[in-house]
């Protein structure tokens, strides 16, 4: 039987994943010893806040954009959404600053940094469309004030802040999908490249090694 020389995309993808992102890197049960600071919690807390944004946002979406203005339960879910967004940006900005001061783009991790920034920018637009979807004075004022900036760069034709239908559909479908996708890419890049090493210690070569209470890399293979 003649052997096919045609490449197999499925096998190629599987081998790429196996080589670059084996399951023990995707779901680690150990961390390098330098991962020893509360700074490392900011990223996971951002994702946790995003989970609550989605949960509260889905409930608000199910009942429609007017519900929270007339129902105490709806208003509670709006409050949940509001404070989840505040928590999301609070921890995201702390995470961003921390990664800056750690120069976390080192060791070929520039795409992790770039996707993090894209995530921040798309999140800002997502929150902005949320403010514009409120159907109250806040959205009215932000819309008429913000239109000047959009008009000045000529993009009102396809991003009209005063068009509730456009802002709402962007806010509840398109942009959350973009944020979710970018979070997935960002986290996968973190797992592929591993956690950035301390500055000046890119190779583990301490003067004195104290490896008590530690697990060697081999044990997790």
């Amino acid at each position, binding site marked *: 039987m003649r052997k096919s020389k045609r490449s197999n995309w499925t096998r190629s993808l599987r081998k790429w994943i196996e080589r*670059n992102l084996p399951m023990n890197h995707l779901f680690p049960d150990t961390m390098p010893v330098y991962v*020893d600071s509360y700074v490392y*919690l900011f990223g996971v807390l951002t994702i946790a806040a995003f989970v609550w944004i989605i949960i509260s946002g889905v409930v608000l979406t199910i009942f429609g954009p007017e519900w929270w203005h007339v129902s105490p339960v709806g208003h509670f879910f709006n*409050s949940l959404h509001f404070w989840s967004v505040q928590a999301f940006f609070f921890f995201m900005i702390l995470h961003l600053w921390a990664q800056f*001061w750690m120069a976390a783009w080192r060791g070929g991790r520039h795409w992790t940094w770039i996707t993090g920034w894209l995530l921040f920018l798309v999140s800002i637009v997502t929150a902005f469309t949320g403010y514009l979807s409120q159907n109250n004075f806040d959205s009215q004022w932000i*819309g008429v004030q913000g239109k000047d900036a959009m008009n000045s760069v000529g993009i009102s034709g396809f991003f009209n802040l*005063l068009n*509730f239908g456009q802002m709402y559909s962007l806010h509840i479908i398109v942009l959350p999908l973009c944020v979710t996708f970018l979070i997935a890419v960002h986290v996968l890049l973190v797992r592929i490249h591993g956690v950035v090493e301390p500055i000046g210690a890119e190779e583990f070569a301490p003067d004195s*090694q104290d490896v008590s209470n530690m697990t060697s890399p081999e044990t997790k293979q």
Partner: protein
Amino acid sequence: MRIQDEILQTRPYPNDRFPQIPYDLIREITLAILGIGILVVVLAFGLSSPDVPALTAKQVAQQDPELLVQTELNALTYQSAIAQYGPPYNNQSGSLQALGSFSPQKWAGIQFPIDTAKDYVLHPLSLFESMNPAIKSAIAEWEHASAHQQQVWATNLQKLLPHAHFSSGLMVLPSNANVGPLGTISNVYLELARTGLLEAAIDRVDGPTAVTNRTTSLLFLENQADTDYASQLNMLGNEWGVIKETGNYPGAVWLWFYSLLYQIPPYNTSSAADLMVILTVIGVTLILIFLPFIPGLRDIPRWVGLYKVIWRRYYKKYSVKNG
């Protein structure tokens, strides 16, 4: 042969060069979700969230009828901010922003044509003709008058307006006031606004389908009325308005840099402030995104040394020279 192809060849993993400590990813994310959940539920119960209703023409007609008549008169005589705005609403230049010959606003052209006299005053009033026949002859008189005559009437009303008396929501002018049909037009306009139907009439809502685009009616009150209301709520642009929320709630504070630019020269004195701010923000953002490739800027963390605090236990424990 095939089996050999399938043998796993994992890429060398940078983190494997270091000793490891136990870690539980799933436990961490679960606890984080629970912790943030408790935090936001407590905040939502304890502090609620802001929801100040939108400003309506009905409110303005009831609380400040003079302002509504002034807004209507400005629209009718093409003196309003929108009438003078320029692209994307018309071909004027009142709010046209350009840096030299660079003007994306001009290049984009008129995308939402608005004729303020027709869209905000004459057409909404014409919908009201069957309920108030007097408006039909008033509109006809206005439309058939010369531009000079219209200007005389408008100027006279403009002078009388600050002294006008409002009774039962209607404007009362001296009997010898030479304002032509503008007295009737303004009073029927006040009536229409008080019904709460003015915005729907402006947006030409004449069917049962949902209205999802209120661009035209939202622009009607955008100048004086909205600004007065926002001023009462301390939400003006020169008061960092874009990052504020109604009430004492945190707003979009993550836009602090964008809002900061509007407070400082040369932005706060430029007629192209929005364009300059947007271009500056785009420039700064691009620098930050591509920071890993910019010598000097990418070395700031090394120079400042805050990382020594973050990894202090590692440096101390292993006597590693920190940078």
